[in-house]
């Protein structure tokens, strides 16, 4: 594994987190940096009013959206927030992706975030993220980060335009209002378009606290407006990273070490490969060897011919079975840490009328984004600059890797952010960027596009971890749950991933409660509970996979809860409901899903249904799955009812799409997903052996969104965690078979 870290990142995070903050991040509040310290962007004939709003001469509005569009709809939802306050129609908006700058940092993932953007005591972490600056799209944070800030940006620009108009007419600002891209004079009903006011408006001071509309007056936020990116995505004009075509472009393909974590020591047949059609160069880096050619296909054919010498680093005997045995052995030892504890679980288990035990497990999973990993880099050696074309979830980290590879400064890297053909956490990792930069370094002056084949992509991922989880639950004589003990054995995603990106932020194993993300803070009133973690080290590289810890822990907890319900002789809905006495918000979501699915009505013979409830990324989702058992092995997924409480929301049609999306992503994993290792190598390599749900298997998904005024939660991920347990609970309902490991195909089931 490459353990190269951005010097810049290391020095800054090292000094900040390691030994006191010595940099000037005080002074301006976060919102003021967005209003006053920002790069110019947009058209030359227009005017930039703040970090997000640029008014063109023709009155169209360019909005800077610094989050990656990977399908989740940020390039529509975030403009909606600005447009609502700016009083412009969505058809008047152009979206651009700005260069990396402080106002665009993402603080949406911070816990206990102070939501008042004017708060002078804005917490230190937010200031550091702003200073780095750390831009990323992940953790379902885009709307939570933007919900207030971007409305303030729209409102501030609107007030500056009103101030400019009032001066022009020599009337009070209170005699003006903004409407549909114009400022209107209340007295004369005279109108002036934003494009004519923008030049004067930039001289106006941003108002101290521009008034924000009450929710009751929203015309755009909370409405199912059409996505701005759809037309380009139906006629082939949308440009993804892989579509970058700078002048003089060459293409590169790569062969990685066949064994996980092995280091390349040489190429046996470099001359032979150099002689193949179209081949320009063979570049050896630590993790693999790239072939640069004049066409991706020629590069790929040449890369396939490479015969590599490598040092397997002792990993040549690694196997899934071996890893599972090692992880299982940890249950007999003291856990590394206790992530959560309430009351005396062991005493409660001893006095329980009934104790239920079960062992669960999930395998490694690859992300398998539709667009294989790729990155295009042009290194201008003489000028000491570089240009990068990529679709990436963490552009700051991507640029630090370019700095490392080319030994140039961050400000000398121009990053062209493209659409992402899927992200799901995979595109937060900068490995492809680092590798592309190291290849481009050997081709100065020529842009090189490194594209991995599907096989290289799947076998060189950062995987969702293999996890084992052992449960003990206690029931009293009346069938009420009184004890909940979960002991998990796994490798830490945080230690592995932060170890690559921010070594000074790596948690110590005994502090890594994040490994139990999704297994802690369950809303149920168990009386006593304990969540233990055994952490193990392992050479398999881990990464953030859509919904991260919740993707496996909700499967475990919501399946085991169903086992307790069955032991108590109750149905899954009623049993959960009775445990939600202290969690009315959860109860309301559970009730909504039950209501949508007509839970109280008995099913026809041959049908089964299951329910699951989980909170992740600030949003609560309950799902009911209804299946038809066609015969002993064939299952038809019939319906999924999904109730989501994501608090204040922006675009219900995008939320519906994201729930459907997360459900399908979770279904593919539950039905088919596993990456297995033998002799140090992954066995799965492409879609035929890493299968996906297709149109023919698609259940009908109905989505219901809860209405309330809670803080905005995430939307891209929370739909995923409940789907596997709801499905497995449905299988139990109709077959009596309890599924304690995934994928379902290994239990003999087929999905028709």
């Amino acid at each position, binding site marked *: 594994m490459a353990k190269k870290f951005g010097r810049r990142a290391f020095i800054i995070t090292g000094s900040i987190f390691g030994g006191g903050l010595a940099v000037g991040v005080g002074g301006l509040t976060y919102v003021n940096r967005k209003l006053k310290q920002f790069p110019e962007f947009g058209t030359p004939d227009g005017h930039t009013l703040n970090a997000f709003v640029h008014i063109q001469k023709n009155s169209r509005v360019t909005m800077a959206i610094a989050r990656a*569009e*990977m*399908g*989740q*709809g940020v390039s529509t939802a975030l403009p909606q927030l600005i447009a609502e306050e700016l009083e412009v129609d969505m058809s008047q908006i152009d979206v651009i992706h700005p260069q990396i700058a402080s106002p665009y940092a993402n603080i949406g993932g911070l816990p206990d975030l102070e939501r008042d953007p004017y708060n002078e005591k804005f917490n230190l972490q937010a200031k550091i993220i702003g200073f780095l600056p750390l831009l990323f799209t992940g953790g379902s944070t885009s709307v939570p980060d933007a919900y207030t800030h971007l409305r303030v940006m729209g409102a501030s620009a609107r007030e500056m335009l009103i101030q400019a108009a009032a001066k022009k007419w020599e009337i009070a600002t209170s005699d003006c209002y903004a409407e549909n891209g114009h400022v209107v004079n209340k007295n004369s009903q005279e109108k002036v378009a934003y494009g004519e006011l923008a030049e004067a408006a930039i001289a106006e001071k941003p108002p101290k606290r521009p008034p924000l509309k009450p929710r009751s007056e929203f015309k755009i936020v909370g409405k199912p407006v*059409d*996505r701005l*990116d*759809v*037309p*380009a*995505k*139906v*006629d*082939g*004009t*949308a440009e*993804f990273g*892989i579509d970058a*075509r700078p002048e003089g472009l060459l*293409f590169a393909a790569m062969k990685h070490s066949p064994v996980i974590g092995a280091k390349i020591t040489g190429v046996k047949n470099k001359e032979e490969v150099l002689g193949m059609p179209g081949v320009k160069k063979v570049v050896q880096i630590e993790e693999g060897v790239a072939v640069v050619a*004049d*066409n*991706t*296909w*020629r590069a*790929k054919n040449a890369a396939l011919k490479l015969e590599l010498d490598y040092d397997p680093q002792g990993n040549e005997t690694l196997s899934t079975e071996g890893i599972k045995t090692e992880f299982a052995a940890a249950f007999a030892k003291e856990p590394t840490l206790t992530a959560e504890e309430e009351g005396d679980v062991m005493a409660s288990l001893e006095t329980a009328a009934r104790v239920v035990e079960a062992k669960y497990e999930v395998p490694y999973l690859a992300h*398998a*984004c*539709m*667009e*294989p990993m790729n990155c295009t880099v042009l290194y201008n050696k003489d000028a000491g600059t570089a240009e990068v074309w990529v679709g990436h979830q963490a552009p700051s980290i991507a640029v630090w890797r370019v700095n490392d590879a080319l030994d140039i400064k961050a400000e000398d890297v121009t990053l062209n952010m493209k*659409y*992402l*053909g*899927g*992200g*799901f956490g995979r595109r937060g990792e900068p490995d492809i960027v680092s590798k592309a930069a190291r290849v481009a370094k050997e081709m100065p002056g020529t842009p090189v596009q490194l*594209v991995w084949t*599907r096989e290289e992509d799947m076998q060189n991922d950062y995987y969702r971890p293999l996890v084992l989880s052992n449960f003990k639950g206690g029931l009293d004589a009346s069938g009420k749950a009184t004890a909940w003990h979960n002991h998990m054995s796994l490798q830490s995603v945080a230690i592995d991933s932060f170890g690559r990106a921010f070594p000074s932020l790596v948690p110590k194993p005994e502090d890594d409660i994040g490994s139990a993300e999704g297994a802690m803070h369950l809303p149920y009133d168990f009386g006593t509970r304990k969540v233990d973690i055994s952490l193990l080290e392992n050479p398999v590289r881990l990464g953030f996979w859509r919904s991260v810890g919740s993707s496996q822990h909700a499967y475990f907890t919501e399946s085991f809860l169903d086992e307790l319900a069955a032991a108590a002789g109750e149905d899954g809905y009623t049993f959960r409901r009775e445990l939600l006495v202290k969690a009315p918000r959860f109860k309301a979501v559970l009730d909504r899903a039950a209501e949508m699915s007509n839970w109280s009505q008995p099913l026809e013979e041959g049908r089964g249904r299951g329910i699951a409830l989980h909170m992740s990324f600030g949003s609560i989702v309950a799902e009911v799955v209804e299946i038809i058992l066609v015969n002993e092995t064939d299952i038809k997924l019939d319906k999924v009812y999904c109730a989501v409480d994501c608090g204040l929301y922006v675009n219900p*049609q995008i939320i519906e*799409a994201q729930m*459907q*999306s*997360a*459900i*399908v*992503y979770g*279904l593919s994993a539950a039905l088919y997903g596993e990456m297995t290792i033998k002799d140090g190598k992954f066995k799965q390599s*492409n*879609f*035929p052996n890493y299968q*996906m*749900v*297709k*149109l*023919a298997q*698609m259940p*009908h*998904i109905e989505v219901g969104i809860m209405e309330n005024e809670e803080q905005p939660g995430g939307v891209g991920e929370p739909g995923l965690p409940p789907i596997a347990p709801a499905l497995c609970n449905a299988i139990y309902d109709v077959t009596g078979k309890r599924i304690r490991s995934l994928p379902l195909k290994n239990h003999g089931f087929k999905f028709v």
Partner: protein
Amino acid sequence: MELSINGKKIQVEVEKTMPLLWVLRDELNMTGTKFGCGISACGACTVHIDGKAQRSCIYPVAAAEGKEVTTIEGIKQGETFSAVQQAWIKHQVPQCGYCQSGMIMAVESLLAENPSPTQEEIGQSISNICRCGTYQRIKEAISTAIDSLQPEETIETVNP
């Protein structure tokens, strides 16, 4: 060799075995057709050969000689989206959008051959992979496209 792509004659000098996908993307810079798996498993690279859907990642360019190749760039008529594209917009199908060129090409071909396919026929024919899971809206959009493609006098008899 000479190819006919979206109605235009184009000369290319490449190996006869080069898959059409890479001729389009890397030789002609027509990037609307996508690379997904390279083994005809996902459908992201779907184009039409004489009007019929073909996965271009395994289709040697020499086989396209003398035939009409249509790519996603050739579906729009001037500024007008096709009925399928309009249905895609109406139902807001795309998320990341990477598979959608191939999806639309597969559906265009299906409906040209069979203007009123059953759900089962749709399921069998459209085996493209979408990792964003847009299948439900794809199904809805196909229904809308089927309706809009019916000759007017038969609309009332269409079974959605």
